[in-house]
């Protein structure tokens, strides 16, 4: 399996150039469904130890069904397929540029959930336009065990988020353990109180905000992902949910650039245009860097050819 590894604002992506699996014909959604149903070991084999690790997101390149798309891509984590992933879309664009397969300009990536437009500005800098994002609930109060009352908004940015404006714990790398514990407790409290996204959707991402530490940035965030890992980057979908809240409060105008800093200090520049319904169409600009070219080898006698789950 030939892969190229990169990181987007610190968050790793593994682009799979040749997956050595046959997903058959059909739409990308059909082929992605076949990846999950017929090749259930694929995700763990490519991303789990000993060949990868928990925080990695995979991007399997496949033939697009639309001829105007630069590539088809199926995003996945160590467990399952992902519909769309902001940092990995940036990683894919930078990897394609690294291979000389795309030049600066606008390109279309076909994903199982639709076509995503990416703009390659230079070999490292990419803008991604996300799905329409909106705020669902404002000023929700929830009693969090060990941490007291926390107030936040519920918003959609491609995933469901609970966003807390003023984190009681400073957003910095040294506090990651405390931030993780607080976020997990907040997620439990939301579940306990039956607070959900639209149509009862589980809120699986928790996001806390605090003041930034780099010049030009407007905010710093900590994002807990569903598996309990935190996002090294400022989180593309989390930024979209943030913009939806800012727009709904009238705190940030369309087209203006907001700089979001992550817990490790990396940044995305984000902005939005008004959406078709009540929401907004967010644009996320970030940088990715290639870190490795690799060929993964799966020896049939290797007891961990399908990955280790610890």
């Amino acid at each position, binding site marked *: 399996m030939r892969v190229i*590894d990169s*990181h987007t604002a*610190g968050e*790793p992506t593994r682009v799979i150039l040749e997956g050595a699996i046959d997903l058959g014909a059909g739409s990308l959604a059909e082929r992605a469904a076949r990846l999950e149903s017929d090749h259930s070991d694929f995700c763990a084999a490519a991303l789990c*130890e*000993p*060949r990868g*690790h928990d*925080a990695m997101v995979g991007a399997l390149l496949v033939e697009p069904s639309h001829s105007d798309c630069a590539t088809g891509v199926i995003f996945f984590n160590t467990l399952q397929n992902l519909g769309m992933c902001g940092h990995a879309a940036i990683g894919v664009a930078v990897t394609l540029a*690294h291979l000389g397969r795309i030049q600066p300009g606008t390109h279309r990536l076909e994903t199982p959930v639709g076509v995503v437009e990416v703009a390659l500005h230079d070999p*490292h800098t990419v803008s991604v336009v996300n799905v329409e994002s909106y705020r669902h609930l404002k000023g929700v109060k929830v009693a969090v065990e060990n941490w007291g009352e926390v107030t936040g908004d519920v918003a959609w940015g491609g995933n469901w988020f609970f966003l807390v404006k003023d984190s009681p714990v400073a957003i910095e*790398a*040294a506090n*990651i*353990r405390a931030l*993780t514990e607080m976020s997990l407790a907040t997620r439990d409290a939301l579940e306990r109180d039956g607070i959900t996204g639209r149509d009862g959707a589980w809120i699986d991402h928790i996001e806390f905000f605090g003041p930034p530490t780099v010049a030009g940035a407007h905010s710093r965030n900590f994002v807990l992902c569903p598996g309990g*890992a*935190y996002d*090294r980057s400022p989180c593309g979908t989390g930024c979209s949910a943030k913009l939806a809240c800012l727009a709904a409060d009238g705190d940030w105008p369309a087209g203006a650039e907001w700089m979001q800093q992550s817990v*490790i200090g*990396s940044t995305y520049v984000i902005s939005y245009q008004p959406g078709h319904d009540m929401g907004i169409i967010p644009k996320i600009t970030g940088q990715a*860097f*290639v*870190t*490795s*070219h*690799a*060929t*993964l*080898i*799966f*020896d049939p*006698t*290797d*007891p*961990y*050819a399908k990955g*280790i789950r*610890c």
Partner: protein
Amino acid sequence: MRSTKTIHVISCHAEGEVGDVIVGGVAPPKGKTLWEQRSFIARDETLRNFVLNEPRGGVFRHVNLLVPPIHPDADAAFIIMEPEDTPPMSGSNSICVATVLLDSGILPMTEPVTEIMLEAPGGLVRVRAACRNGKAEEISVRNVPSFADKLGAALEIEGLGTICVDTAYGGDSFVVVDAQALGFDLVEDEASELARLGVRITQAANEQLGFSHPENPEWDHISFCAFCGPLTPTATGMRGQSAVAIRPGKIDRSPTGTAVSARMALMAARNQLTVGQTFEAVSIINSTFTGRIVGEAQVAGRPAILPEITGRGWITGIHQHMLDPDDPWPQGYRLKDTWGV
């Protein structure tokens, strides 16, 4: 494509524990001996940070650098880089290095058995590989003389009170504790708790007991905590499970070759195992190394054993690690969620 580094790596694991091997792209480090070269790598940190830290590495990854051998008897030499240590010797890493050297053809393979001599910072390592159809299927590593240091020492652990521990050296230095007495079954669900407690026990052992290798005063600390399960007799010796906590806080996926050696030294000191007998060591993910006492020795007048560790390694990939000159993290980064307790 721009890259200010191109480091060629063949990745590998031994019974679940990752031990990647740098086969090219790095100039030999400064130093007249392998130990001096190892000390340069440890002090300089550039290579360690680049390959061990995120985003290229992670807390579970060990990386070995192949260097030209210095000892006239050695076929190849390597320097071991672990998250917090640049140790004298490592069993799982030796198995990975031998697997990569033979399976990728850096050293010639003879079937059914290939014998090679590796040079590690801690000394010469004799390797016997069972080979078939171009694959080194089983690697036996002769480890450095291993010895018990303190038997049944009292150790104060905050929150736990006084516990009874042993200390021993098996190519690396260990504090050894009874897992059952602390309420552990050594199953995967306990991994996180074992990792955190193990680091605390190691720290306490360094403060209260300490360790100094009698022939290498520069190795003057305890590296790891081994939680050991009960022993059961087998036809050729003993079998037992263990979990080794590695700083800054993870459990070895393999049974840890140096821990198996240290434990056999302790068993020999208690007359539980003798020359020619085997110890089947089982890891937290149920992978196995077989240890064997192949002889007796002395280290600065103390009784020691000559241990041999047998395990299996598999190549998992071929990588070229690169550094874009604009990458804001040329040294990578490590964060306390996985890198510290």
